[in-house]
């Protein structure tokens, strides 16, 4: 009895300390969308949908998860059994006994799978810089011990009760245990009963400081996952009044960001998909999460404060470093120590890690929060970025070009400025790349051609448009983003584009389906004059698109923004744009831009468009849709040099070349730039061209409609 109590108290102290640490972190509200949260809990936690996406370890995990839960009931039953009691319903229920034992067998098989994976297959992503492989094996050993002792308990109980306490395993083991005396059987039963208990209790105590903390934290982490637009970074409020900007100390993360660390199962799926890591950069997304967790434990003494009961108790607390040498070994401070600055700067914010994480960990906002501290508190960032910041601030674009020249690409194309046609139904937000970059000016010209062919009443802002601030925000310069955003919001509101009064009624319009109908609705209304109050912004730049659509609302700018590929798809659907089907005979592959795909879930629309105009449809690359591999340009990376490892753009270009396609269709000006560079880099100019979807459509328009 005392043993139980001691173990439970010890566990309670450890768990209490973990929870208390979270309460010391920054607040964040994660109680919206309560129905979705409950749904996700059933699907992801009980249904294990996250881990099942990787089938072999996924199924093994499914069995272990449910086996573990059943064993807990079995355990309670055993405990009550020792006092001659039993659980209601389950206690003497043979069906429960059968199910439990089936799972005991399944868990045993799963453990073999896990052991083979860890010991023999050894996928690289399971490694961690913070500790050796022993943690995983200790856990496997402990689970095995739980299972074995349970089996033996059942076996001897069966023997001791002469078959009265029937369990499948007990009955099965009975002949194997020999014909010991009744007395021996009882002693063996009691011994293994205790061993089973001690193992489970030991597990309980070991758990808070191991990767198996996920067992407790994951259900909460999934429940408290984000339901805000995936592409929106959190806003830093009161920028001008506050003392700190971003995260330099671990306790400046929000409680949910820290819970991510507890929930991390160290499965390393994030590592397997990271474009930076997979081209030899020192960014291990998993180590960012674990690094923050470690940093939290290293600083737990300071965070909890001297008067904390957990510090006073000391003995039972989670391991924290005491001497300066130990701290040194743990690489204080967090940034530049346990989490390297190079890792933070290598991130392309492609969101592949967040997308694949089975337990809803959000890596990207954490990385950007730490970048924010480096940029705004330390003025520390890759040197190339200084001119980017200065140019955006002074010229409203990333280059040393006067913003007055923004509409020069459109000279002679008869595209009105919004100032000349303030009632235009559609604003084409050209973006800096479309306005100034020679290659992407061709894309802008094609977009304009497509809009004209569909008789869309549209205009551009010209010099009134200025950089959305997206690269600045992703690099960590929240201040510059806010300045740019506020300026653009003022301009857009001035022309009456703000939709807030109308969207307020349909607040939940952020899901994929609602987005589709939103675009379809916009297209339906074209030419009917009903758009005059509620108007649409379209853009060929996914980065402009994402920040205006998902982030400007944080500053009161709510707009209907549609990516041009989606808009074109809807124009075709509504037959406002009639094209020759199968006009393009070239073999074609499509690259999902991160900010269209993973950020905003538009995978089908671009493919539908391409399938109409191309007679072979889309030949997919191995990594497509939500597994698309970044071009290397996101997160401000396009403005930084890529000095370490292989080039991300070339890696993706090689993958595209592998499909033997002649055309790499894209929907993002940065992807186009990165891929054209990449194609030059691998000397494949003869083999493959990069084209924006609008460019292919523009060519189709010039062909007479034959169907």
């Amino acid at each position: 009895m005392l043993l139980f109590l001691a173990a439970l108290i010890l566990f309670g102290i450890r768990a209490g300390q973990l929870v208390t640490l979270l309460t010391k972190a920054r607040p964040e509200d994660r109680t919206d969308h309560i129905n979705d949260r409950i749904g996700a809990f059933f699907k992801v936690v009980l249904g294990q949908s996250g881990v099942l996406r990787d089938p072999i370890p996924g199924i093994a995990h499914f069995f272990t998860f449910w086996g573990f839960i059943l064993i807990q009931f079995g355990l309670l039953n055993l405990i009550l059994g020792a006092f001659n009691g039993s659980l209601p319903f389950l206690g003497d229920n043979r069906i429960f006994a059968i199910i439990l034992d089936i799972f005991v067998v399944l868990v045993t098989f799963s453990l073999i799978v896990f052991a083979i994976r860890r010991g023999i297959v050894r996928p690289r992503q399971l490694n961690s810089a913070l500790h050796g492989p022993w943690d995983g094996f200790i856990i496997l050993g402990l689970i095995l011990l739980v299972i074995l002792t349970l089996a033996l308990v059942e076996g001897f109980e069966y023997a001791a009760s002469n078959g009265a306490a029937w369990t499948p395993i007990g009955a099965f083991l009975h002949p194997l245990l020999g014909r010991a005396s009744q007395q021996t059987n009882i002693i063996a039963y009691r011994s293994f009963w205790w061993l089973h208990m001690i193992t489970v209790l030991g597990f309980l105590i070991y758990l808070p400081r191991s990767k198996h903390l996920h067992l407790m934290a994951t259900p909460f982490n999934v429940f408290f996952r984000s339901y805000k637009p995936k592409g929106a970074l959190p806003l830093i409020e009161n920028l001008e009044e506050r003392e700190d900007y971003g995260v330099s100390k671990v306790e400046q993360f929000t409680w949910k960001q820290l819970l991510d660390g507890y929930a991390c199962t160290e499965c390393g799926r994030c590592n397997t998909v990271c474009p930076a890591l997979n081209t030899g950069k020192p960014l291990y997304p998993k180590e960012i999460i674990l690094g923050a967790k470690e940093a939290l434990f290293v600083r737990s003494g300071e965070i909890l404060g001297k008067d904390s009961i957990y510090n006073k108790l000391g003995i039972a607390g989670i391991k924290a470093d005491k001497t300066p040498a130990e701290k040194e070994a743990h690489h204080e401070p967090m940034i530049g120590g346990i989490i390297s600055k190079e890792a933070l700067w290598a991130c392309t914010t492609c969101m592949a890690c967040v997308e694949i994480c089975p337990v809803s960990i959000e890596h990207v906002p954490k990385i950007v929060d730490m970048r924010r501290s480096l940029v705004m508190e330390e003025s520390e960032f890759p040197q190339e970025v200084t001119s980017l910041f200065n140019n955006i601030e002074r010229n409203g674009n990333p280059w040393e070009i006067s913003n007055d020249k923004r509409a020069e690409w459109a000279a002679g194309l008869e595209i009105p400025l919004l100032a000349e046609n303030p009632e235009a139904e559609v604003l084409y937000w050209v973006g800096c790349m479309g306005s100034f970059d020679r290659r992407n000016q061709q894309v802008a010209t094609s977009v304009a051609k497509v809009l004209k062919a569909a008789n869309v009443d549209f205009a551009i802002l010209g010099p009134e448009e200025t950089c959305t601030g997206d690269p600045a925000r992703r690099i960590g310069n929240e201040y510059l983003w806010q300045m740019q955003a506020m300026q653009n919001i003022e301009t857009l509101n001035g022309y009456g584009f703000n939709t807030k009064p109308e969207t307020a009624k349909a607040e939940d319009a952020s899901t994929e389906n609602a987005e589709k109908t939103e675009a379809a609705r916009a297209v339906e209304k074209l030419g009917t004059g009903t758009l005059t109050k509620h108007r649409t912004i379209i853009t060929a730049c996914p980065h402009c698109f994402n920040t205006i659509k998902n982030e400007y609302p944080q500053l009161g700018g709510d707009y209907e923004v549609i990516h041009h590929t989606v808009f074109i798809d809807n124009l075709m659907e509504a037959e406002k744009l009639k094209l020759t089907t199968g006009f393009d005979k070239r073999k074609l592959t499509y690259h999902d831009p991160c900010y269209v795909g993973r950020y905003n879930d538009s995978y089908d629309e671009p493919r539908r468009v391409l399938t109409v105009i191309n007679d072979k449809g889309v030949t997919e690359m191995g990594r497509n849709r939500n597994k698309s591999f970044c071009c290397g340009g996101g997160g401000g990376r396009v403005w930084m040099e890529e000095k370490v490892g292989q080039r991300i753009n070339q890696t993706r270009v090689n993958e595209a070349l592998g499909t033997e396609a002649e055309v790499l269709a894209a929907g993002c000006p940065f992807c186009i730039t990165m891929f054209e560079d990449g194609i030059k880099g691998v000397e494949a100019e003869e083999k493959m061209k990069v084209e924006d979807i609008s460019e292919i459509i523009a060519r189709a328009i010039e062909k007479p409609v034959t169907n």
Partner: protein
Amino acid sequence: MKMFVCIKQVPDPNTTVSKLDPNTKRLVRNGVSLVLDPGDESTISAAIKLRDKVGNSELVAVSMGPASAQEAMRRALAMGADRAILISDPALAGSDAGTTARVLAALLKKEGADVIFCSTESTDGYTGMVPGGIAEVMGIPQLTFAREINIEGQKAVIKRVIPKGYQTIESSLPAVITIASGSFEAIYPTMKGIMGAKRKPYSQVSLADLGLEASQVGEAGAREQVLSIGTAEARAAGQIIKDDGNAAQQIAEFLQRYQLL
């Protein structure tokens, strides 16, 4: 130690096509975007670096110009200067390089400057005469093209860029130090810097405060006159080498011809 950095607000050299007024023969400064001279950003950064290295020192940004130059001064403060003084007076309009040097020298003398930083030249007028002028008026040494600066006791020791390397030279203090372009990375202001700049001491002084007469400065006091302005001849087109296997060889030869290799 009292350190000063002389700065200037100029038409943004990156986006503005400089226009000259045919009547006054001067640069048009109205209706263009004005910024802190990008060259000065490096100079301020060099000065901040030295201030922090020496310790127990103050860095003051000074400028002569219209009240609108305050924006450029704020940038210097955001970057890390401790305070800023703007010399502004209607009578100063039309001052030449010599006058600018005399006016700045008057302030620097009054303030008791130990080290005075200047850019080699401004990015608008490009006369390059002000730093030398200040040293002359104040009767102190000028150290030019510094790429590394140290204070040793009561001496300034710099590494000075020369065509084939650098010289180490020293001088007594006070001294004027001009910076070799490209030697110091410009500091990008932190948020703390930007917010703090609003609270840092900023003062504006007039000619009278410096004990100068209006007749000595501006158009009236100018000894330098712009006689005529003209369009620069378009540069001849460069040579394009097409790579047929020995482009590297040809480029190397070309560079050798100009002793660049």
